[in-house]
């Protein structure tokens, strides 16, 4: 421990603590913009400056270690002036058209400049911009970029994709796609981690809410919502709801208020995915197809893009099962259209996702098998919240209501799709049943849970040993793929999720400065599974009904046509 003094108070902090963290440990808030703990401690914004008594010049508190005897001031006149002017300088190059910004109200720059009382602006405006392809699911508005470098760091250090880089030099320095390439030509998985780590509105998803609004306003359309597993953990976070208040039932009511005709649960099609993918796995295993490389899950489009771009030799080992989103689209526009007695094109299907890559996935040309577009629009949780807020709905006081039937029933196995290890655990529960005819203890495969980047487990089903791996975060996934390719490890079945912690930490989730909420949200999903009285996908009555009335059997002809895909044919961009 070292003894320091901050703003006159004697404190003890552990050795090697930065001034910023030392202050935080003692509930002293030092405003900061570029700092991202462990990832970006580069002292670029100079908003976190502090004064060390005895020194003429200020230091960046984010990367200066508090040393024994240091007397620190975080609010001296010198600090206040520097902090304010540095924010004003940032504003001179920031398009502060806050009312028309997706991050208004959740913007660090806005919050700090408001807190500092910046009411007049003394500098010349100097706002430039780089053009951007507005059709791409990931939108970058250079005019809002404050060059904090966080996107570069997250993409380079966590996801290891190196999409972003500093370009030009000197006072012309900007952030742009590496090598000046177009975003459609660079290996961007559209995971959206840069968006959730951007302190301002420079990085956002492509906003598709107007498309959805137009569909809702079209009297000829039946508009159907489906809600992905991880959406239920987070949709209320920025609407001021507690987790207890933000139930999926309340979300269903809110979506009905917005005007959706039917609201379904994507977790139903997660169960459907398990039926197909679990059966496929057993078939490929018994056919001896997994001797060289394992079968990989395929429900994360960020991961599918990654493997197509970085490890094309492994694409053939992806499960051919479509993701729950796309299976849902295919089922809604065929079986459910039949039930309603309407044509596929009469239905407009909106998928609510914690994900930005899903916006790409629904546009993949060869994906549509219903005769129409299987999924018409994908909205992130942030867009969902905007949709609800724009209706002026007082969600807190809404009565809860259930999902529509029959596509509103899901098992606990379907719920946990939204957290790392969940797909694997769900698949193993059903695979066990398919092999033995009996159900395992639902928690028999819990060893694949947890937040280690690359997890391994071995299970035995009927005397057959299964070697399992689960990885999340593309940096971890790259290590795993390298090891698989170099034959350093061997598995039978591997789950990969592009975002750290899986969809719970997805790039389409609400953004909270300095907080990583993926693990907390994942635990909510595990709790939902725990308390569910239905914990096996194959026991979901709607799944049973769907196979009985429509699909026939897993891997059957209809399934093959509607629920499977060939990822080799997916274009990376149109």
């Amino acid at each position, binding site marked *: 421990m070292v003894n320091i003094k901050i703003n006159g108070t004697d404190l003890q902090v552990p050795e090697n603590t930065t001034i910023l963290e030392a202050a935080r440990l003692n509930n002293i808030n030092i405003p900061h913009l570029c700092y991202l703990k462990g990832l970006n401690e580069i002292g670029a914004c100079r908003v976190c400056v502090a004064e060390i008594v005895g*020194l003429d010049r200020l230091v960046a508190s984010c990367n200066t270690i508090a040393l024994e005897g240091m007397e620190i001031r975080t609010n001296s006149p010198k600090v206040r002036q520097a902090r304010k002017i540095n924010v004003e300088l940032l504003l001179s190059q920031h398009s502060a058209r806050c009312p028309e910004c997706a991050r208004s109200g959740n913007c660090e720059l806005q919050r700090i400049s408001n807190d500092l009382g910046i009411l007049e602006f003394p500098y010349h405006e100097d706002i430039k911009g780089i053009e951007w392809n507005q059709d791409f699911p990931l939108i970058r508005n250079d005019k809002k970029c404050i060059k904090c470098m966080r996107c570069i760091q997250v993409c380079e250090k966590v996801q290891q994709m190196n999409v972003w880089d500093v370009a030009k030099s*000197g006072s012309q320095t900007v952030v742009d796609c590496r090598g000046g390439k177009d975003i459609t030509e660079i290996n961007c998985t559209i995971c959206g981690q840069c968006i959730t780590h951007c302190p301002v509105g420079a990085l956002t998803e492509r906003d598709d809410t107007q498309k959805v609004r137009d569909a809702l306003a079209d009297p000829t359309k039946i508009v159907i919502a489906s809600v992905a597993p991880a959406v239920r953990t987070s949709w209320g976070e920025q609407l001021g709801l507690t987790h207890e208040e933000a139930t999926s039932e309340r979300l269903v009511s809110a979506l009905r208020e917005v005007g959706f005709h039917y609201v379904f649960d994507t977790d139903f099609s997660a169960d459907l995915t398990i039926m197909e993918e679990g059966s496929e796995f057993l078939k490929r295993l018994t056919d001896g197809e997994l001797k060289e490389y394992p079968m990989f899950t395929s429900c994360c489009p960020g991961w599918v893009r990654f493997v197509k771009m970085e490890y094309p030799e492994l694409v053939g080992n992806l499960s051919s099962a479509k993701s729950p989103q796309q299976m849902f689209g295919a089922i809604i526009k065929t079986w459910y259209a039949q039930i309603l007695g309407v044509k596929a094109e009469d239905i407009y299907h909106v998928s609510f996702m914690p994900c930005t890559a899903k916006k790409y996935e629904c546009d993949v040309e060869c994906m549509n098998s219903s005769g129409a577009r299987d999924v018409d629009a994908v909205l992130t949780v942030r867009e969902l919240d905007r949709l609800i807020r724009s209706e002026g709905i007082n969600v807190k006081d809404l009565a809860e209501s259930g999902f529509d039937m029959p596509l509103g029933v899901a098992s606990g196995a379907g719920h946990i799709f939204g957290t790392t290890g969940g797909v694997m655990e769900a698949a193993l529960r059903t695979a066990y049943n398919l092999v033995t005819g009996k159900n395992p203890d639902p928690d028999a495969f819990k060893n694949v849970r947890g937040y280690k980047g690359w997890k391994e487990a071995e299970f035995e089903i009927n005397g057959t040993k299964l070697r399992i791996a689960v990885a999340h975060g593309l940096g971890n996934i790259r290590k795993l793929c390298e090891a698989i390719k170099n034959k350093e490890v061997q598995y039978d079945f591997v789950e990969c999720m592009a975002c750290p912690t899986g969809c719970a930490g997805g790039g389409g989730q609400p953004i909270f400065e300095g907080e990583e909420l993926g693990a907390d949200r994942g635990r909510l999903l595990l709790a939902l599974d725990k308390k569910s009285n239905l914990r096996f996908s194959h026991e979901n009555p709607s799944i049973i009904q769907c196979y009985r009335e429509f699909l026939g059997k897993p891997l059957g002809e209809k399934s093959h046509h509607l629920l499977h895909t060939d990822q080799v044919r997916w274009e990376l961009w149109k």
Partner: protein
Amino acid sequence: MSRLVVRPETEIQATANSLHFDLERRVTGAPPGLCPLDLASSYLKVYSSQTCGKCVPCRVGLKQLEKLIDDLIEGRGDMKTVDLIERTAETIYASADCAIGYEAANMVLKGLKGFREDYIAHATKGHCVAEGFQAVPCVHLCPAHVDVPGYIALINAGRYADAVRLIRKDNPFPSVCAMVCEHPCENKCRRNLIDDALNIRGLKLYAVKNSGHVPVYREGEHAAEATGKKIAIVGGGPSGISAAYYLGMMGHSVEIFEQRKKLGGMLRYGIPAYRLPREILDEEINTLLTSGDIKVHTEVSIGGDSYPLSKLRSEFDAVYIAIGAHTDKSLKIPGEDAEGVMSAVSLLRRIGDDNYPDFKGKKVVVVGGGNVAMDCARSSVRLGAERVIIAYRRRLEEMTALDEEIRAAEAEGCELFELVAPLKVEVGDDGKAKALWVQNQMISFIKDGRPTPKAASHEPVRLEADIIIVAIGQGIESYNLENVSMNPRRGTINILDSEQIPDMDGVFSGGDCVTGPATVISAIGAGKIAAANIDEYLGFNHPIHIPVDIPAPVPHNRPACGRVKLRERSVDERIKDFSLVEESMTAEEMIQETERCLRCDKFGFGTFRGGRENKW
């Protein structure tokens, strides 16, 4: 009112003058890798502030040039803009009334020529060829990319052995370089922006003097697992030994083939012991040879019929040729073959083998103005010469020797004769040299950045001389290496940027034999590159990584402070022997000097990128 008045310097003038000095330092400390257009534009702003406002091209043209270059910088321009910049600059150069205008335009024209690619890149792509990376200056400018801020922090913390280990990650020769490195690392030291560059070499000397013996491996560390690959290294100088050191660490079997009696190359056969004591050189080399499976064969020549390169290549998995530049250039004047005329190389080589000639009572003339000339002159003093003259064609300002070498030679009593070109050697009946006749020169026009001398209308001058040492540069031996691609004009070996010799599978080359006579540290850097690329060529990727944690910078004020200078032994004492002239800093000086370091690894761009490469 008096007819004439005394005008003392005003405070305004004094401040302006001081700011001009600041600007000079600022330019000296300009970081490498800036956008050349940005530079041109900002210099133009300075130049147009100097215009008197009278003539059109200077008053209006310079401002327009600045705006046009800004168009390119900000992506508004195209190739037409480049063309207009060029024509405008030509016109200002041709028609401005005074040097303020035409020299400003000339600098723009020079930039257009030198940075053509960047101008075109800006016009077509909107940015420079290379962009967005500002390296740590000292690390970047060191050919071996030694982690300078890292080892300075370790020295400050008293961790001298760790400093030596960290240096060895990139440069196996910390002791040698502590004494003889030309320290390009200091050229752009950011400390120039405050006062003066750090004395980096001096600090390294402090580290090696205080570290004690630092073995290659600590307890529990060892070379990588043996790969079974064999690599031949031709030439046991700094480049060859560096390559051998790293290749040994990587687990390869290395054999060094050295032509002379001992290893060291120019470190032994080019640098006198008063600058690099033999025992220190020997100790360092002996330590380095323990990095792995390294065998040494001395007095073996590769090439020619006795041991053709093709035979060597067939016996090894890869070959590194680092044979240096050891032949001397001659003056090509009458009498040069007289007894008493010798080349610098032959004198220094003799000394390198501890065979010291006796110059007692002799009058010596050294011809040349480089470091080798200073080495010969200062050695002659120590060999007992009665009088030593250094005769140089140009002026002192043009001498390529380091300033401190020239000053030391003068201090030791050598006389500098500037602007004299050798005409002939006067030979006595006994066949011995009697004198060197020289022609006085006058300094004249500047070509390729250097003023050239031309013969002055003056009678030849006789410089009495028993010994004439020719130190006008070394050449490369005309190697008998079949199929090795050579540059016919410079006589150097051609290589690709991987150091591989074109069209020769698995044969690499680097050091003086590629660059022509250059510095120790560039030879070492070449050896490091060779090791990495040979390892890769053989299908491996052994990273070189020395785990040393670097102390975090301690925040403190950085008041302007002079640069610590190394003391030297007193002249009358040191000229009597070949012992080391330089003395190490005191502990107090070391602390002050290390604290001058601005820690560019942790401040500025370094904290974001490029501050530290832990392995290569």
